[in-house]
């Protein structure tokens, strides 16, 4: 574990940027049509439930990383294996986001740049950051938090000013039945982006005021969930259901349609800015966690030495994980939530929590005797 402390505000900011990261760009819960924003809010509540599982684990082991307390719960051998699987999971997620990001970039702005090059320079920046440690990442997050919010607010203002919002597009809300919406909310949408907050089990121990963690975590998830819901609602209100669900990057389409005063138009670059800030924080958090986790499992004294190798692994996985963007998205919507997110975000943590509960109760009894 690194010798570092981050403040409550910094953690809030990191979780917020992490959640907003790539979720801003893709059509979240698109199959719910007009009610997409509602599904996001439902998923947010699912996210709260998951957060409570993680919080429960954190309370049993407040100063240990995920990779450390897994060994305490499951024993040394099995614990190491699970910890290693988690590291692979984080590396895979980092690679997924990187691929998302690289493909988006190539699709909308740089058709002639090879994917490998675009991803390589980006992972280089991430590795540079990860080597500086969690404190620097948190401070960077603070600055980017302000920047991202400024950008989002400017967009909202411009959209309202250009008079493109048609609230009729949001009706009827319940074209799909309520139970159906609940089902959508508690399955796919909860894993991405809310369930991914499990990586923060590797960062919570750095918090300098652990007693406030519950408030910070829920507050941050709620803020980002509401932001995402609002943005989705605005997307649908401006573009209509059809265009929103069909377009790859609804936010980009939205930003491209802004035209104010003959000068504020073609604001693609600001979309690029948003995309990169979010993607950067998200990939950095995943990479940082993968690096510290690896150092922890394999007892490496200087985790910063692992940053380059882990970065290269992430880069290579991001290239070979899918042969095309369509395949990548298809995997992301089909197999990944069911076979990867579900066990790593829900089943294993839940099992760990149950085992930890019984173990600690036993200990508590022994102590009281």
């Amino acid at each position, binding site marked *: 574990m690194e010798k570092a402390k981050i*403040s409550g*505000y*910094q953690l809030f900011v990191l979780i917020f940027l992490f959640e907003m990261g790539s979720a801003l760009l893709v059509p979240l819960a698109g199959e719910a049509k007009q009610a997409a924003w509602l599904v996001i809010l439902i998923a947010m509540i699912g996210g709260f439930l998951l957060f409570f599982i993680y919080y429960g684990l954190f309370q049993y082991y407040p100063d240990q990383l995920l990779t450390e307390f897994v060994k305490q719960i499951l024993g040394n051998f099995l614990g190491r294996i699970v910890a290693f699987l988690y590291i692979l999971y984080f590396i895979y997620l980092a690679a997924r986001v990187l691929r998302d990001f690289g493909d988006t*970039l190539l699709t909308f*702005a*740089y058709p002639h*740049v090879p994917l490998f090059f*675009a991803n390589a*320079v*980006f992972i280089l*920046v991430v590795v*540079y*950051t990860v080597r*500086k440690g969690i404190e*620097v*990442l*948190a*401070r*960077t997050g*603070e*600055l*980017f938090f302000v920047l991202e919010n400024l950008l989002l607010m400017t967009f909202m203002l411009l959209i309202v000013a250009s008079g493109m919002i048609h609230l009729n597009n949001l009706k009827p809300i319940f074209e799909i039945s309520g139970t159906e919406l609940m089902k959508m909310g508690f399955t796919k949408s909860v894993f991405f982006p809310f369930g991914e907050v499990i990586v923060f089990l590797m960062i919570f121990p750095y918090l300098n005021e652990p007693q406030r963690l519950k408030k910070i975590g829920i507050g941050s998830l709620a803020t980002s969930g509401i932001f995402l819901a609002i943005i989705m609602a605005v997307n649908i209100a401006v573009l209509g259901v059809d265009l929103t669900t069909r377009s790859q990057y609804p936010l980009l389409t939205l930003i491209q349609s802004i035209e104010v005063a003959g*000068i504020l138009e*073609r604001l*693609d*670059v600001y979309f*690029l*800015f948003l995309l*990169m*800030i979010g993607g*950067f924080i998200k990939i950095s958090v995943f990479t940082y966690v993968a690096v510290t986790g690896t150092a922890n499992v394999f007892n490496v004294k200087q985790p910063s030495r692992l940053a380059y190798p882990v970065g290269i692994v992430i880069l290579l996985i991001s290239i070979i994980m899918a042969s095309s963007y369509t395949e990548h998205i298809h995997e992301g919507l089909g197999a990944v939530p069911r076979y990867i997110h579900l066990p790593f975000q829900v089943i294993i943590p839940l099992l760990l929590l149950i085992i930890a509960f019984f173990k600690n109760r036993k200990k508590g009894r022994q102590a009281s005797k």
Partner: protein
Amino acid sequence: MASFFKQKRQVKQREKKKEDTGQSKSKTPDYIDSSISANLEKVKKKTGNSPDIIIRTLKIGQNPEIKTTILYVQGLIDNPSVTDFLIESIMKNPHLSEKILPQEALDVISEEVVSLGGVETVKDWEKLFLSLLSGDSIIFVDGINIALVASTKGGERRSIQEPSTHLTVRGSREGFTESNATNIAMLRRIINSPNLWIESMKIGTVTKTDVSIMYINGIVKEGIVEEVKKRLNRINIDSILESGYIEQLIEDQVMTPFPTLNHTERPDMVAGNLLEGRVAIFVNGTPFVLVAPAIFVQFFQSVEDYYNRFDIASATRFLRIIVFIISIVGPALYVAATTFHQEMIPTKLLVIVAAQRETVPLPAVVEALLMEMTFEILREASLRMPKAVGSTMSIVGALVIGQAAVQAGIVSPAMVIIVSITAIASFATPSYSIAISARIVRFGFIICAGTLGFYGMILAFIVLIVHLCSLRSLGVPYMTPLAPLNPEGLGDTFFRRPMWAFKERPKFLANENNLIREGDNQRPLPPESRGMKTSDEKKGEGNES
């Protein structure tokens, strides 16, 4: 295990070496002899018979006459005090022309004869040479193994002038000089408090430069002074010729283009910084005083911001930040927009730019790098060359770059405009040291923009932000109060809060027990009759009715 022993042995060897070189320190001090001729011989030998060391021999007393010698270094002493108060008073004093014992003579001289401020006795050579070479006069009396040191420091020095950096319209016109004593006195004149504490030390094994640390006891944060002293004491170098030497030897991070210690020529700026809880380091021989710890936003603050009203000051600050951003990304934006993102440029402007670029044989990146290099060459040349040829160069520069290059079709006029704006912007930053960093960073941005357009630029921007966030100055994060966020501190960053709302000193710099800097209700209270009032209460003076 083997390597462990090896290390230990190396340490021992290093210690041994230290002892060999620093003989004078570890060995017993070398004492002064009682015979004058032996002493003078020693002085001559040690100084290589340098002619600027003046030896003046006098005779005092009667039956027997006692030989007395005065030693001083020409140019370092204050001439009137040596001639009038030392030599003349020794020669003409009635006590000394009487019969006197050599043992008493020294006491008489120090207590009755020499009418100078500081007189003390020394026994060992090391201290004697230190005083002699810093401008004091030495008095030997034959037969006594003690010497008198009379403080006669003086000599030619630059007088106090207006500083040439950090210029202001409003505010003090005084700038620091090369003499530490004068500089410290200037601060004393501004801050009349016994809590203004100063500690001095000599750094440099050969130059033995005077270095003084100044801080306000009670306002400075605990630990910061100790940290500064620890870092200064670590320095083991032959010479300190400017405060830049110290800066480079005590800064937190070496590999960075950004300054992590601030320096200034203005006493009022140092005073303001001391009152915020910072520490100043004075180095003899330079008008630039170091101020630590430094934070990023500080480099955009000018003392005048505090002298002007807050709205004006805030607007100027905001302008400076914009100017700094322009000076970093200006040419890069142009390169990225013209090479990769033409759709960003409004159509009419795009047509003009494209028409200009039609004849230009070079890609925009090369064009930008070429022009920036030319500009840097011009600037460097105008800084270093003799003043007499300055006008020639500006003509050549303006003609060659402004006219000929454009007419020849080597560069586009738009590029010239961009480079000029960037150049002006980089001069508008109040701190020279951060303007230089912007110059270096700018080239990185141009290259990134030329290879990957805005994608490259944003990557460079992210690296820049991460790098800035990773810096520290004496342990204080460089980007405070922005990151880590310090809400109270934000009032003195991009805008400046009104003077009556500056309730506290910045928490990240000053001692937490002594934060209050002004009383409550400092907001001016003009007479209430002004403005729209319904009641006819008479409060305050100056009612018009």
